[in-house]
C-alpha cells in the first residue's frame, strides 16, 4: 500500500454534526490519526441524523455519520469530569492539531483556554469552527444551513425574481466550512513544522459562504450594481436547467456568438429565422424566442443533446443527473468514485469516494466509522496509560 500524505499527523477531534467531522474526515482519509471524543452514552448527535438504511430500521446508525467519520477512533469522555479533563490534557500533549466546533466559549468553560492549551503544547494547532466566528455581534446566533445562505449572500442571487430566494439542498455551507477548516489546519501545521509554533484558527461558516459568492459585494463596490436572481425572457438561453424529453439539461454556450451552433444542434428551422440571429433581435423578440427554444428542447432527449453539444468545443452543456444517474455514470465509474465502506447495513450503500486524487499518497478508507466509544480503552489505557482506578466515571454522560 502506498504511504499517505498525512501519516503521523495526530488530530484531537472535538467536533460533532457536519462541519467539524468533514474537516477531520478529510484529514483522516489522507492518513492522519484521528481521535474523536464523544459525550458518553449520547455521542455525536449526527449518529441520529438521516438518512438511515431502512433495511435495518436502525435510527441510531446514520449513514451520514458513517460517511463523515471514516478512519476515526471514538473515545467516550466526559469533558466536565476530573478524569475527562486529565485525559484531554494528555491527548493535547500528544496531538498536532485540535479541531472543535462547540459554541464559542464552551471549550474555555471546560478549562481549556488558549493559554492553557498553549502551556500544555506550544506546537498545537487549534482550529475552531463556529456559526459566525469566535467574535462579533452574531457570535451567539443560532443557525442552520438555511441561515448561512441568507447571511452569506448566496441566497439573494439564487432562484427566480418572481419567487422567494432559494438555497441548495442539504448542508453545503457546513461542508464548505469543513473543507476550509481542513485547509487552514494544514496551513497552520505547515507553519508549525517550519517555525515550531502552533497557532489558533477561527473559522466562521458565514464567512466561508461570503468569501465564495462571485461579484456579489464586488459588483456594488466596483460599479454600484446590486445583483439579483434569474429573470426570464431576455433573449438568451437560460443558464439554468431546461426541460427536455426525459429530464433536464443546462444549455451553456460561451457567448451568443455560438447561437448558430445551438440552432443546428436543436434541428429546428424556426430558430434559424433571421430575426433570431443577433442578440438584439433575440432580445426584441424575447418571448417568442423563449417559447420556441423551450419547445425545441422538450422534443429532444438529454443524452443526445449533451453528447451532441460536446462535439462542439463552444457548447459546454451540463447534464442534470440524480443519484441513480450518477451511480451508473461512465466517468464516475472510470474513476471508481463510489465506494462500499465496511459492513454498513444489509443494503450495502455506496459512499462518495475520493473528492480528488493524489497520485503518490492516495485517499484510503481503511476503517469504517467507529461505534460509540469503540476505542475508549485502546486509547485511554493502552496508548495514554491513564490510571485505571479512575476509569469508572468515564462513561457517565455530560449533563450539559
Amino acid at each position, binding site marked *: 500500500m502506498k504511504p499517505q500524505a498525512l501519516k503521523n499527523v495526530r488530530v484531537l477531534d472535538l467536533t460533532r454534526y457536519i462541519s467539524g467531522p468533514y474537516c477531520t474526515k478529510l484529514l483522516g482519509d489522507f492518513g492522519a490519526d484521528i481521535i474523536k471524543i464523544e459525550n458518553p452514552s449520547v455521542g455525536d448527535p449526527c449518529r441520529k441524523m438521516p438518512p438511515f438504511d431502512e433495511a435495518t430500521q436502525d435510527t441510531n446508525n446514520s449513514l451520514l455519520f458513517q460517511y463523515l467519520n471514516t478512519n476515526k477512533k471514538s473515545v467516550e469522555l466526559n469533558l466536565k469530569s476530573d478524569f475527562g479533563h486529565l485525559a484531554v490534557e494528555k491527548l493535547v500533549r500528544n496531538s498536532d492539531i485540535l479541531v472543535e466546533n462547540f459554541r464559542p466559549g464552551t471549550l474555555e468553560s471546560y478549562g481549556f483556554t488558549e493559554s492553557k492549551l498553549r502551556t500544555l503544547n506550544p506546537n498545537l494547532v487549534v482550529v475552531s469552527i463556529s456559526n459566525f466566528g469566535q467574535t462579533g455581534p452574531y457570535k451567539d446566533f443560532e443557525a442552520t444551513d438555511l441561515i448561512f445562505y441568507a447571511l452569506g449572500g448566496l441566497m439573494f442571487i*439564487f432562484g427566480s425574481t418572481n419567487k422567494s430566494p432559494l438555497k441548495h439542498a442539504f448542508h453545503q455551507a457546513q461542508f464548505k466550512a469543513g473543507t476550509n477548516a481542513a485547509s487552514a489546519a494544514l496551513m497552520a501545521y505547515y507553519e508549525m513544522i517550519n517555525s515550531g509554533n502552533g497557532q489558533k484558527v477561527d473559522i466562521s461558516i458565514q464567512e466561508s459562504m461570503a468569501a465564495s459568492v462571485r461579484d456579489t459585494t464586488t459588483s456594488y463596490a466596483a460599479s*454600484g450594481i446590486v445583483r439579483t436572481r434569474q429573470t426570464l425572457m431576455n433573449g438568451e438561453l437560460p443558464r439554468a436547467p431546461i426541460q427536455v424529453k426525459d429530464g433536464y439539461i443546462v444549455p451553456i454556450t460561451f457567448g451568443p456568438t455560438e447561437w448558430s451552433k445551438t440552432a443546428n444542434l436543436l434541428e429546428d428551422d424556426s430558430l434559424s429565422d433571421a430575426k433570431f440571429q443577433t442578440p438584439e433581435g433575440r432580445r426584441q423578440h424575447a418571448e417568442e424566442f423563449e417559447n420556441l427554444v423551450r419547445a425545441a428542447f422538450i422534443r429532444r432527449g438529454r443524452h443526445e443533446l449533451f453528447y451532441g453539444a460536446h462535439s462542439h468545443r463552444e457548447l459546454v452543456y451540463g447534464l442534470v443527473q440524480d443519484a441513480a444517474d450518477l451511480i451508473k455514470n461512465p466517468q464516475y465509474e472510470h474513476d471508481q468514485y463510489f465506494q462500499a465502506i465496511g459492513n454498513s447495513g444489509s443494503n450495502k450503500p455506496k459512499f462518495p469516494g475520493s473528492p480528488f486524487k493524489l497520485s503518490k499518497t492516495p485517499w484510503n478508507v481503511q476503517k469504517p466509522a467507529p461505534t460509540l466509544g469503540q476505542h475508549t480503552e485502546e486509547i485511554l489505557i493502552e496508548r495514554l496509560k491513564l490510571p485505571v482506578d479512575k476509569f469508572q466515571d468515564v462513561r457517565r454522560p455530560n449533563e450539559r
Partner: protein
Amino acid sequence: MKDNGILSGVRIVELGQLIAVPYATKLLSDMGAEIIRLESAKRPDAYRLSAFYDERRDGKYWNRALNFNEQNRNKLSLGLELDNKNGLQYLYDLISISDVFACNFTPRVMKKFGLEYENLQKIRPDIIVISSTGYGHTGPWSSFGAIGFGTEAASGLAAATGYENGPPAQPEIPYPDYTAAEHTVFAVMAALIHRLKEGEGQFIEVSQAECVTSTIPETILEYTANKRIVKRIGNSHPNISPHGCYPCEGQDKWITIAANSQDQWKSLSNLLFPETGSDNRFQSNESRIRNRTELDKLISSKTLSWNNVELMNTLQKEGVAAGAVLNGKELLFNEHLNQRDFFEIVPHHPESEVPTLPYPGKPWKMSPGSDVKMKGAPLFGQHNESILKNYLGLNDDSYDTLINEKAVVDNIKLDTRDILVSREIREKEGSIYSYDPNFKSTIKSYFNI
C-alpha cells in the same frame, strides 16, 4: 512567524482561468505563496473581458475587470504566448524553479503543450502538478469542456435543489468552481506537507463535479441504501418545520427562519402569532411538518409587517435561528462581518485607474502575522520584465526579441464580449436589483479608504 505570510517561499505557476484554479491560488496567495499567472493576449481569461470598474469600457479595460480583480489579488502576471516556441520553453524554465504548477485546461490542451506530469517531472523531479477539470483528467468525459453551471448539473446537487414541484435550480454563480477550489487548496497543502517531509512531488487530479458530489452524501446514500431519489422541496427541511424564507416589509426583502426545537417554536409563535399558539395543527414538529404549507402561509402573513433585520435580531434574542437575506450591498455593509474585519481592503496599481476597494476576505482567521499585506490583482503583463529577466536571467536582447515576436505581451487586442448588455437594459429587464450612482463616495466613507 514570518512577516510575509506562512506560505512565503512557495512558488506556484498558474495556467488557469475563471475560478476553479484562480480562487484556489488566491487563497494560497493570501497566505504568502507567490503566484505567477500566465496570461495570453490571444486567449485571455474570460474574466478580463467582462464587467468593469464603473462600467468603463475604454482604454485598458482588462485591468479594470472586476471578476478578474476579485479572483487574482496578490498575484504576478506574465503575458506569454505558448504558441511561440520560445514562449513554451520559458514556461518550462519557470516550472523548473517552482514548487507547484496549476492548470485548468482540458487534458488535450495540457498534452498539446507537453505539460503532462511525466514531462514536468523530468524538468523538476519534485514538482506538484494540479489538473483541475470539469469531470476528470482521464476517462470518457475528460475531454468535455465545462464551467460551473454544467458541473453543478452533473454532480447531483442541481437535481436535488429547487422549488417544490419546480425544475432543478442553480444559483447565479458558478458554484462548483468554489467547492473544487476549496478542495484543491486542501490537496495542495497535503502534497506540500508530504513533499516537505519526504522530498517527493506528485500529480493532483481534481474533478470539479466529483468534489461537489463528495459534499452531498445524503442523496447518494438515500439512493444506494433505500433506492429513493430525494425530492426538491425548496427551502423546506424534511425533518424541521418551520424552516423557510418569508417575505418582509420592503422591495424584495426576506427573512429565513428555522425553529430547530420546541423551545424555539414557542418563542417564534409567541412573538408572531400568540393568538394561534394553541392551534393543534402546529403543536409538535411532526404536525408542523404535516401542515407545513398552512404554517408557512401563516408565518408569511405575519413577517410581511416586519423589517427583516429587526425581526432577525428580535428572534435571535429569543434563541430562534433566523437570518435576513442580504443582498450584495447589505452583505458588504453587514455589521457583524465588518466588526470582524472580514473584507480585505485592496489597493490597485495606479495605471489600472481602479481605486482601493473592499473585496471578500479569507474563509479563516489565523494569528496575526500569518497572512500578507494585500496587493491588487496585477495589470495584464505587469511582471513580464521582472520575471523573465530576474527569475529566468534573460538579457535585454532576448527580451526585446520576445517582445518583437509578440511572444511577450502586455496588451489585449480583442473587443469586449458582445454579451455585455448595458445597465439600462438590464435594469429594465429586472436583472439588476438596484443601482447606486453614489457608490464611490459610499464605499470611501464606510471603509474609510
